[in-house]
């Protein structure tokens, strides 16, 4: 099984998000980037499949701050190869990113014959589209999203995929390979890789690079962000101040007033 995992860095919301002076984008000078959470699950799912039935896992990402650490970490976890696409413009949207990444997957030897293309089901900045269906469209492959279980079969070239529905219902699908999957959650939580191992990998292995020149298509997004703002914190909540006991009493009063006690 040749598996390609598409990883994306997104702004880390643990930090306070600052808005750039133009009011249309985030000021990332002090902000940090982190691997999109469901992409981490996609990588884990890929590694689990490799451990079970062999094959190769290649992690692909666009150049971004802190992406090197993520790619080395992927190698330390067991990925066979990592590929960094260098030179994309800053603030590339999901759609523009998908366009570039799809071309790399289609042209790069070793990625061309992928049986599975995995990525996270959704990222927090997917304003103009979701990565998985975009890739499937660009690569002319079938697509299934919100996947929580994936069992590919070498022989029959069919994967059994579990998709999540509301109310805790799940459904089993059969998907002909090759295909693109949007992973919601891996079968096991993403594994821990010790810092020593990542550092050892940084010394002994390298990240392959491929330039994005010629693959970009500006304006693909068709959207124009007019303004971004931070919603007023607790704009709608009345915060019950005081000690825990005082707040609890106040809340009791409110509930009693409304006949809820």
């Amino acid at each position: 099984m040749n598996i390609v995992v598409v990883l994306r860095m997104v702004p880390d919301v643990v930090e306070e998000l600052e808005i750039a002076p133009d009011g249309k984008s985030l000021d990332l000078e002090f902000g940090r980037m982190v691997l999109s959470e469901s992409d981490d699950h996609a990588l884990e799912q890929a590694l689990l499949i490799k451990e079970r039935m062999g094959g190769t896992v290649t992690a692909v990402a666009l150049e971004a701050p802190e992406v090197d650490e993520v790619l080395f970490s992927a190698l330390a976890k067991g990925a066979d190869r990592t590929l960094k696409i260098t030179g994309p413009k800053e603030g590339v949207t999901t759609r523009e990113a998908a366009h570039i990444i799809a071309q790399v997957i289609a042209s790069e030897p070793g990625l061309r014959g992928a049986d599975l293309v995995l990525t996270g089901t959704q990222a927090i900045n997917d304003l103009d589209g979701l990565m998985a269906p975009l890739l499937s469209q660009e690569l002319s492959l079938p697509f299934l999203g919100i996947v929580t279980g994936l069992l590919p079969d070498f022989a029959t070239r069919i994967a059994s995929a579990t998709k999540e529905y509301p109310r805790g219902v799940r459904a089993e699908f059969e998907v002909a390979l090759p295909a693109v999957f949007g992973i919601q959650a891996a079968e096991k939580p993403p594994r821990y890789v010790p810092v020593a191992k990542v550092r050892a990998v940084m010394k002994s292995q390298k990240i392959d690079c491929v330039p994005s020149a010629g693959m970009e298509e500006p304006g693909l997004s068709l959207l124009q962000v007019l303004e971004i703002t931070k919603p007023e914190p607790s704009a709608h909540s009345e915060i019950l101040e005081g000690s825990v006991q005082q707040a609890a009493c106040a809340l009791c009063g409110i509930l009693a007033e409304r006949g809820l006690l």
Partner: protein
Amino acid sequence: MLDPAITSYLGVPGYAYLWALTLLSFTLFGHKVLRYVAVLREARKENRWDKPGRRLRLFVANVLGQRRLLAEPVAGAAHFIILWAFVLYALSFAWNLVRGLLPFLPIPWADDIPGVGLALELFAVLGLAALAVVAVRRYIFTPPRLERSFDATIILALITLVLVSSLSMQVTKVRTPELSLAFWWVHMVTVLGFLAYLPYSKHLHLLAAPFGVFFASLQNTGMPAASEGAELRQDFTWRQLFSGLACAECGRCDRVCPSVGSGYALSPKVLMRQVKEAVRISDGHKKPVRLLGDMVKPEEIWACTTCYACMERCPVFNEHLSVLLEMRRHLVSQGQVEHRIQETLTHLTRYGNSFGASPRARPKWTQGLGFRIKDARKEPVEYLWFVGDYASYDSRVMPATRAMARVLEFAGVNFGILYEDEQNAGNDVRRIGEEGLFELLLEKNRKSLASARFQQIVTTDPHTYHVLKNEYPSVGGDGRVLHSTELLAKLFRAGKLPVRHSLRLAVTYHDACYLGRYNGVVEAPRRVIDELGATLKELPRNRNNAYCCGAGGGRIWMEDVPGISERPAENRVREAAGLEGVRTLVVACPKDLVMFQDAIKTTALEGKLVVKELSELVAQAVGLAERSESHVAA
């Protein structure tokens, strides 16, 4: 005078029998011991020959002087007597054996040497009395965690027989020489039998313990040397495996272990037995001995709080903690860490703190103090205050941190902090076994420290104190790192903290593990409490005997195990509440503060006992108390 060596039995002279028995005994003994040595030689090398003078002093105090055993006075005194009786008898036996095997030698029997006979008799009587004491202790007033094993019973019986037979031999020498002879044979056969049995019994500690003490770890941190962790028997160092052989199963470690006290999966004594069993396996190398996995389970390994009480107590200087940490390192290297630990380690790697909060939020606690704390990165200071994660980020600890800041400012101390450039010092990261992450944190902290100019480092956090002082090369050492209580004591001595509101009340004080037991800082906090005008009532378990709150070793970050009836912190607050007239438990550690606050709630002691950090009390006494905030938003 009958000479057993030349007396004939069934036509064969005595010495012939003696030779046969001796060879049998020595072969059985030697074979097993050589097997053990072979296993130890297969293990990882570790040089324990350094500082021989210090080692010799350790030997004299603990083997000859039995110092650690005397901590339990009755058993200790009895054991002291039995030990020296044994030494005397061993020497006498060796002499007699040589004389018996080689009867042509012109030397007397040992008991015929003037004075020796009397000494032997005296020690036989004393020894038997001591044996009676230990038997009563073992079988009637059995201490907790002491197993009344078959092995132990045999040993006691054999020792008794050795002493009784010797005494009987002496007593019957003159009147009934044949009987005396018989007792002589009984004595020799018993000792030879004892010798043959020794390697199969826990009494191997007789031979192993002196070596164990001499080759003890001189660091007093329980931290194993750099390694990738250990899983198989041969991955451990020879000294770690040796701990199994030297263990006498006395149970002293278990008696002070918070894990055992609360019923978690770990028992240090059982761990030592598992090591011993691993060493004993000799199936001809059919397959490697998987100590971790087959014998020791992960739940045991993760249950340790690294409080060091086991190693501090152990009379043979076993290295329980070292063995555990090796196995933790291995589990971490395999990524086999529980979910919450994984999250915490990821937070530490990414944000440099265990809370997963933004590094930029680290200095937020300094807001609203009314004065600006110096930035040690920008201007030189005398004291660099390395604040620590819990003191900076935890809303329950922030009031104490702020109190400390106000006290230092009031006392005119020239101090500063590293602001956002401070990272977790890494003590608990090391104790979880993530050496790589520790290296990373150490590097980042060193860089931050290098950018600052200061004379000394001070911290309120004992974990931070311990690791900066002992495990940051060229940062600690030479008194460069102080705990806040040490600085406070200094300030009081210098008259910089005049007490306005003397704290006329009775308090008790909990010695944090990493402050008291690991680093011996016990008098400074007591000095401070005294200066505050408070009366200190000691907890029954105090100073190096203090009972761990249960937060160390990363346990504060781990999932709670269901079904525990009383956690270590709950046990400790009950101990404090049990002191007459005491309503305040004083601590000098942020994690203690948090653990005991929680425990007071879960034991329904609210209103009866309150826990206070020492800096808060100092601020109060000096007249700097802020209106208390019960919960502070970050």
